[in-house]
Each structure stands twice: as structure tokens, then as C-alpha cells.
């Protein structure tokens, strides 16, 4: 009897401690890694990184100015596609949606969210690159735009649904039409949440590499216009990291540092804002 009790109490303590160890291990391993990146990447960062073009193989120095601009251009195209479709789709689900069709849309949105990014890359390749016969910024932007849609939809829907119904009723009671109420009352009430959701969405696709490898491809020089291959930060990290040159490794660390800092800053601020407003769509 007592032996049994001792055994049970011992199991209790041992197992509970083990769960704590799990947490500690998960958190510390992960943070060691991040700390290492921030330290190592920050150390290898130079001003040239932001202002200069990559140098040919064998020379040291140079930077990734074209990749930074390239990433910005890709994100611009991506948001021109992902944000309107995602936002309007979210408005439909929250404000107009019937039952069956909305269910289908929600389900496909979740499905699209789970499609591996490399498959989205194949899609952009077969739809655009095959017809154009060359790699382009445009195709890369479209691939990223498609990837943005699901999260934009779900976060817009959630924040609109969080707006109390009394606001809608109040607006309609004052004589506003349904759409007028949505545009002037409901959306403004949810706009901060929706915008932070979209920022998180952008931060997520900013680090995507796989869909860009065979759409935007890469470029050692400035990419003029929107119809030429362009380099981007994630693809540069990839190609530089797997190269055999030490100086390229150093630059991969710098690029990783810059990308990670941007992504984490956006995430920290967005999540702090959203934490006050409730749930975060993933």
C-alpha cells in the first residue's frame, strides 16, 4: 500500500520534471540556434552588404543590394495579388457567406495553405515561365502572392467576425445599406487586426525560397523592370550557403541575419498588437 503510494508519488515527480526538461530542451536548443545566428550574422555584416552588388566568384567583398531590392519587388507583386484576393475573400466569408459555398471556400483555403511551397513554384512555372520562356520577377511575385492568399483570408475573416453584431445592426438601423455598414463601420473596427494579419503574412512569404528558385531564379546584377530574373535574399542565402567559398558563407550569414531580423521584428510587433486583440490566425 505505502510502497504503491511511494511509487505513484515518485512517478508523479519524475514525469512532471521530465515535461519541464522537455520544455527547457525545446526552448534552449532553439534559442541557442537563434542566438548563434544573430551573433555570427551580426558580426559578419558590413555596410557594403546593403549598398554593393555581388562580386564575381573568387573576389571577396561585395554585397546584396540587388537581392534586397529584388525581395522588395517580389513582395510588392505578391501583396498586389494576395492582399486584395485574400481580403475580399475574407470579407465574403465573414459578411456574406452562405453555408455550403463558404464551407468549400474555407476548406480549399486550408488546403491551399498546406500546399508545399515548392508545388506553388511548379504552378507558377507551368503557368508563366513555360509560356514566357524565361524567368521573371513577375512569376516569382505571383507564386508568393498565391502563397499569401490563405492567411490573408483567414485572418481577415477572424477579425471581421470578432466585430460585435450590434455595430452592424446600429449602422443598418441608421439607414446604411449592408455594404455601406461593412465599409464604413465593420471594416474600420477590424482594420488594425486585418493589417497586422497581412504584415505577418508578408513576413512569412518574405522568407520563402523554394517557389523562387525556378520562377524569379537569381541574378548577379540589378534586375531592370519586372520581366527579368531577379535575385532575392532567401535564394541568395541558399546559393551562397551551399557554395564552397568562405567569403560567400560570410555573406550568407549576413543575409540570414538581415532576413531573420526583419521577419522577427514584424512578428514580435504584430503578435504584441494581436495579443491584446485575441487569436492569431496561422
Amino acid at each position, binding site marked *: 500500500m505505502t510502497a504503491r503510494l511511494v511509487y505513484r508519488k515518485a512517478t508523479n515527480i519524475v514525469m512532471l520534471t521530465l*515535461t519541464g526538461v522537455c520544455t527547457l530542451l525545446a526552448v534552449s536548443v532553439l534559442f541557442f540556434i537563434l542566438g548563434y545566428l544573430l551573433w555570427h550574422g551580426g558580426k559578419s555584416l558590413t555596410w557594403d552588404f546593403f549598398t554593393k552588388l555581388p562580386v564575381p566568384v573568387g573576389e571577396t567583398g561585395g554585397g546584396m543590394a540587388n537581392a534586397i531590392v529584388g525581395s522588395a519587388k517580389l513582395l510588392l507583386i505578391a501583396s498586389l495579388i494576395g492582399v486584395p484576393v485574400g481580403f475580399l475573400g475574407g470579407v465574403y466569408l465573414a459578411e456574406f457567406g452562405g453555408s455550403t459555398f463558404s464551407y*468549400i471556400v474555407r476548406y480549399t483555403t*486550408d488546403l491551399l495553405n*498546406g*500546399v508545399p511551397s515548392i508545388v506553388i513554384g*511548379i504552378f507558377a512555372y507551368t503557368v508563366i515561365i513555360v509560356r514566357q520562356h524565361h524567368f521573371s520577377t513577375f512569376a516569382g511575385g505571383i507564386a508568393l502572392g*498565391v502563397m499569401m492568399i490563405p492567411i490573408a483570408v483567414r485572418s481577415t475573416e477572424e477579425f471581421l467576425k470578432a466585430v460585435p453584431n450590434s455595430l452592424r445592426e446600429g449602422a443598418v438601423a441608421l439607414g446604411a445599406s449592408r455594404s455601406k455598414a461593412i465599409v464604413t463601420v465593420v471594416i474600420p473596427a477590424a482594420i488594425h487586426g486585418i493589417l497586422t494579419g497581412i504584415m505577418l503574412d508578408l513576413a512569412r512569404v518574405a522568407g520563402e*525560397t523554394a517557389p523562387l528558385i525556378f520562377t524569379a531564379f537569381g541574378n548577379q546584377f540589378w534586375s531592370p523592370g519586372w520581366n527579368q530574373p531577379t535575385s532575392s535574399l532567401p535564394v541568395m542565402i541558399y546559393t551562397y550557403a551551399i557554395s564552397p567559398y568562405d567569403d560567400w558563407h560570410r555573406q550568407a550569414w549576413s543575409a540570414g541575419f538581415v532576413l531573420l531580423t526583419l521577419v522577427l521584428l514584424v512578428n514580435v510587433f504584430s503578435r504584441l498588437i494581436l495579443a491584446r486583440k485575441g487569436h492569431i*490566425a496561422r
Partner: protein
Amino acid sequence: MPTSTSIAEYARPSERARSFLSRLRGGDAAAHLITFLAAASIVFVTGWIVFELYTNSVLSRREFGWSFLTTQVWDPVAGQFGALPFIYGTLVTSGLALLQAIPLGVGAAIFLSELAPSRVSDALTFLIELLAAVPSVIYGLLGVFVLIPFLKTIEPAIRRVLGFLPYFQGPFYGVSVLTAGFVLAIMVIPFIISISREVLLAVPADQREAAMALGATKWEATWDIVVPFARKGIIGSIFLALARSLGETMAVTMVIGNDPKIHASLFAPGYSIASVIANEFTEATGDLYVHALIELGLVLFALTFVINGLARLLILSTTRKGSS
């Protein structure tokens, strides 16, 4: 009387037209239509992706049929394409990842939901969820320059303990199936922790209280009552992690070694579906080669489709947040 009916009948169509016009001007119908189109386009694009994958893999499907999935030979020069080494690599790396991520992730989720004070739990979960936002290419970078040197130093120790198994034999170059499994584990742990924790927190408090009132220890209440109660959601989080790791491209490509052969040893290099597409797509010459790679994409799509669907059903049935 007759006149009024005829007037009413006469007026009806134009009235209808006017009311549609006024509704349009008021914006309700227009807003409905525009947002409907946006929503419909999501369904359309998803269907389009499947369509493109299917039609652009026709050559390879016609040439190899179902044996594509069971053939080991991948020889672009000879025009022989079999997907088995990649399917094997994908499944083994994901399996290795889950083997490490499930105990760690579920353990941590139990700690965060049952033991830690809510402030500590929220803060830690916040940090852990940040890790889910780290781009995969960064995990690849760390895999190449931190994890591989680390594994090389502990490799003799692994060999000494487990070397009698066929899985830990042969030379170790750093890039290997094992390395990819480690990187994937680190990448999916945050998903398992954050979703499992949410599911565990959704278990009603009276379940715990009732168990403790009957004399169960804290651990017994957790393991025998709370965890089984949240079982479906936890399994759902594991499936979601599995789907993520199956489709993960960059980090795996950078550390798996890219060798299209099946080796028994985990120390040997391998290849995964996503990484062969990433590596060979731009170099693929000939339509059959491209179609074979796209068929691999189709296989990957089908795999993640089934597993994501299961994950969502499971999570949906325990919490009402299907979007997580």
C-alpha cells in the same frame, strides 16, 4: 381594377430592374458579387494548381504508370525515372523528425498547459511560436554550419552505442538522412507544442478536478485523464507537423546530401521529393524529365492533401479553431 392590375403587371419588370439597379448603386449586390468572385477565385486557383500538375505530368504518367512510385532507378540520361528513392527519403526524414519532435513537443505542451503559471506559459509559447516564423532557408543555413559540425563531433559516440545496427554504419560525411531528420525535428517542434498546448488548455477544468478529487496525483490526472481527453487534437497537431515536414524543401535540400539511392544507413546521404524538384527543375532537359519532376510534385501534393485533411478534421473535432 383591371387598369391597376395591368399597370402593376406593366410596371413589374422595370420595377424589378430599378430595384436591382438601386441595390447595385447602394452597393449591396456589387459588394456581394465582388467579394464572391474573390472567394471563388481561391477555389479556382486551387483547382488550377491541381490541373496544371496533372496535365504537365502526362508524359511521365503515360510512360511509367503506377510503377513510377515503386521504381528505384532515377537516371535522367537514360530517361529512366522512378520515384521510390525520393518517397523513401521524404518518409524516413519526416519519420525521424517526428520520432524526436513528438515526445519533446507533447512533453513541453503538457508542461506549458498543466504546470507552468499562465504568464510564464504565455511568454514561452510566444517565443516558441516566433520560432515557427523563422524562414526554412535559415534553418538550412544553421543546419549546414552548426548542426553538421556538431553531428560530426558526436558521431563516434553514436557509432559506439548504436553502431551494431545497420542504420548507423558506413561513412558519415555530415550531409545525411539523419541530419535532415534533426533539422526537420527542430522545425516542427514549435507546431506540435503550440497546437497541443491549445488543445490541452481546452480540456475542461472539472476533468482535472474530478481526477484529483478521486485521489489521482497531478501526473495521473494529466496522463490518464487530460491527455486522452485531448488525444485527437494532439494527434492532429502531429499530423500537421508531418505535413509540414513532408513538404519542407530548403532546409532538407541543404543537408540531406542529394543522392537518389536508398541506403539502409541513416548516416548515408539521401534525397527527398521536394529537394529533387528544387535541385533538378531548372536543369531538367527534355519534356519527360520535366514531367517526371512535376509528377513528383503531384505525389507530394497528394500526400500533404491527405495528411492535412486528416489533421484538420482531428483538430476541428477537439477545438473549434480549425484554422490553426
